[in-house]
């Protein structure tokens, strides 16, 4: 129904700036999602998954469109900050529920404006109600919404004025939501006495930036025998599939595109011997940390070295070709950062050798009685860089998810990023290895080596990278310990594990998510004690809590747009090792 204008602002265009806006003003990391607006669900809604906004707003173009999205996010955030937990509807009639929604909307906006007065301007511009017009309930509700939001608005309707007076009364403490319910109840009775029709099926919250207020109420079971019988079961517009799964998290259709699991690389072990990789097949037991008892469980998890399946290395070369211009930029970046070559710095105050030209000039100055230039030396400036990097890739099943808007899997993007990063490290001359891991319970943490430190980044390594697949789970601790051990054998001055992951540690036999997190944290600490830095690149936008717990305040980055990983990773690496 809502065919947007061609130049309407689309959610995808503003998503990132909205996320910044939400994070800045409210310190909220809620996910922002889009849904396709329908007759039934045309207003934003809030679930445990995040804040759901329409893909576009019909007729909202240019500045107005962005502002509308911003108003919607700010309003939703005000709810999340100030609204009480969902309540039972109890004996409230649908019309009273609708009025309670209007009052609650006004209440949370007022509270938000107390701190941030400028938000009022943002919201008020979308209130378009006029004091004239038909006096249907929908109309009055919109007028009331405006009367409560806009102090300059005048209305002559007695009901609107009564509601406004009640709301503005000095006895009302806005910070305490308990006044909303009785006030809505009284105002609802008035509507009943005015014999105004209320149709819950057609009622929509207005103005458009406001969400459907479904977060205020406990989802109502069909067989609600507690309240009075209602002619309409759906009080507020619910998401399309809302009535089929009460109490569940409501998910908008079309929000997710997840493809099925790729077949697991079967018969890996059989081929291992043929390819001469048999000596890799080792099982190494590692301890695991149990945070509940603060003890290390000895030999609790087993890392199994698994051979990497080679595929056609041409796929990797194709990536390099596709990113030709990006590689050139990386090259320029490396040259610009002067990481590589020692430089002869002439005319220095200090240095290893004398700068003959400068000395001659100085002597001439001395003989002729002038003050000589004291900068007589040549210094060789070596940016000494002795660094070994182990890139550790999370190869769990979730890396097979498609990244929205690209048609590529997370794994493909991780592969691309790794290839570009490898090109950068190769050019700088850092020693690096590329390994990956996935897990299937504590006895089977599979550890794959795509490129060794000693191996050139050529066909063998490329073939293995091309054959990389994602499966199973993410048991980080064991893999980190194994990586630490391999890196310890390197003789470099500085050592770094760069972990690229798309989710938190989990495994089939660990039901307490904190268990694997704390174990991973322990593994990071052990690495640090062995003189190895660990840095995490997380592709999970909700990663903050656990990633900072595991890796420490400054040792991680969360990518807000996974699709930009390939172009971001090499830059991050250069900055990190500058």
């Amino acid at each position: 129904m809502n065919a947007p204008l061609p130049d309407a602002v689309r959610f995808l265009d503003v998503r990132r700036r909205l996320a910044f806006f939400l994070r800045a003003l409210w310190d909220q990391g809620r996910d922002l999602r889009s849904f396709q607006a329908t007759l039934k669900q045309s207003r934003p809604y809030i679930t445990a998954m995040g804040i759901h906004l329409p893909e576009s707003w019909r007729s909202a173009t240019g500045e107005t469109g962005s502002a509308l999205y911003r108003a919607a996010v700010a309003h939703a955030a005000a709810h999340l900050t100030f609204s009480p937990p969902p309540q039972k509807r109890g004996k409230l009639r649908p019309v009273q529920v609708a009025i309670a929604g209007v009052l609650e909307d006004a209440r949370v906006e007022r509270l938000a404006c107390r701190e941030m007065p400028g938000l009022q301007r943002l919201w008020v511009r979308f209130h378009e109600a006029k004091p004239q017009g038909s006096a249907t309930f929908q109309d009055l509700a919109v007028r009331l919404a405006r009367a409560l939001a806009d102090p300059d608005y005048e209305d002559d309707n007695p009901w609107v004025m009564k509601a406004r007076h009640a709301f503005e009364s000095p006895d009302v403490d806005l910070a305490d939501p308990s006044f909303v319910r009785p006030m809505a109840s009284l105002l609802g009775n008035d509507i009943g006495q005015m014999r105004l029709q209320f149709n819950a099926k057609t009622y929509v919250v207005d103005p458009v930036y406001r969400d459907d207020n479904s977060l205020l109420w406990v989802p109502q079971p069909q067989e609600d025998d507690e309240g009075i019988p209602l002619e309409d079961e759906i009080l507020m517009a619910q998401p399309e599939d809302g009535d089929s799964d009460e109490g569940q998290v409501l998910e908008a259709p079309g929000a997710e595109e997840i493809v099925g699991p790729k077949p697991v690389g079967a018969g890996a072990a059989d081929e291992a011997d043929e390819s001469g990789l048999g000596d890799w097949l080792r099982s190494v037991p590692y301890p695991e940390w149990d945070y509940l008892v603060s003890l290390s469980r000895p030999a609790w998890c087993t890392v199994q070295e698994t051979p990497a399946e080679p595929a056609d290395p041409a796929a990797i070369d194709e990536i390099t070709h596709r990113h030709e211009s990006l590689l050139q930029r990386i090259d320029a970046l490396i040259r610009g950062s002067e990481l590589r070559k020692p430089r002869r710095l002439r005319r220095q105050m200090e240095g290893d050798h004398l700068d003959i030209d400068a000395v001659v000039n100085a002597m001439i100055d001395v003989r002729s009685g002038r003050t000589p230039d004291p900068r007589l030396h040549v210094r060789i400036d070596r940016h000494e860089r002795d660094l070994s990097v182990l890139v550790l890739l999370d190869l769990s099943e979730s890396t097979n998810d498609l990244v929205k808007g690209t048609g590529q899997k997370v794994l493909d993007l991780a592969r691309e990023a790794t290839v570009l990063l490898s090109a950068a490290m190769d050019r700088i001359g850092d020693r690096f290895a590329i390994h990956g891991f996935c897990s299937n319970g504590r006895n089977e943490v599979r550890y794959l080596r795509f490129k060794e430190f000693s191996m050139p980044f050529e066909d063998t390594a490329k073939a293995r990278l091309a054959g990389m697949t994602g499966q199973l789970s993410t048991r980080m601790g064991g893999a980190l310990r194994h990586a630490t051990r391999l890196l310890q054998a390197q003789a470099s001055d500085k050592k770094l594990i760069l972990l690229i992951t798309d989710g938190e540690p989990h495994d089939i036999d660990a039901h307490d998510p904190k268990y694997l997190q704390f174990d991973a944290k322990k593994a990071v600490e052990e690495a640090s004690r062995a003189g190895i830095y660990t840095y995490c690149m997380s592709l999970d936008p909700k990663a903050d809590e656990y990633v900072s717990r595991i890796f420490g305040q400054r040792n991680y980055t969360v990518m807000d747009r996974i699709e930009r990983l390939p172009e971001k990773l090499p830059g991050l690496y250069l900055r990190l090792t500058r």
Partner: protein
Amino acid sequence: MTDLSAPTTAADPIAQYRIGREPYYRPVGQEIELYEAAYAARLPMMLKGPTGCGKTRFIEYMAWKLGKPLVTLACNEDMTASDLVGRYLLDAQGTRWQDGPLTLAARYGAICYLDEVVEARQDTAVVIHPLTDARRCLPLEKKNELVEAHPDFQLVISYNPGYQSILKDLKQSTKQRFGALDFHYPEARIEAEIVGHESGVSPDIAAKLVSVGEKTRHLKGHGLEEGASTRMLIHAGHLIARGIDPIAACRVTLVRPITDDADMRDALDAVVTAFF
């Protein structure tokens, strides 16, 4: 070689480093008391904290309060040990020894403040070691002199642990010589007082500026490397006090300097308009 280190002002060679007027400093916690005790024990100190939160102002204030001269040196990558210690210079007659800032401070009893010490190369940082333990002396290898630190001398460094580069960190052997004071952006009420005092804007505007600053700090690690510092808020206040519209002032002094990302700029502009 003749030593011609002729002092320019024989009476007080470090007169120019004395602080005449009381610098404005608003105490946030116990830091003054702690620092005074540390100075009394001549304990080398490290001031930690994000940029623009008042580290340098604090040390200026303390130097003034203790009546000691303050020699400040901003460290950079190209700094060598002799930039700290001193060097021979050529002149028409021959050579002349020139004390470096660290030697000057040690010889005549100043507080020597090395700003952003991680920026200096690691071998450079090592020259401060003999000054920071029981020896309290500074060997001038080239001049063949051992400078005993003046009883008033104290070494202070600043260190911003937020640096993203893992290769830039102080050695443990350096870190462990110092006591450390942690600095953060002060709490809103105090920060507003500071912004108001320094820039001359009304308390109401100052409070709003501080709120904007706080909001931007939520974005640290989420697209911003660092939120707006107290210093930036003061800059915004300066412009507002000169009659610039607050939204424009914040754009110029907060939003534009802090990010080049168009989306981030848009979000921060929206944050500013939420307050003004």
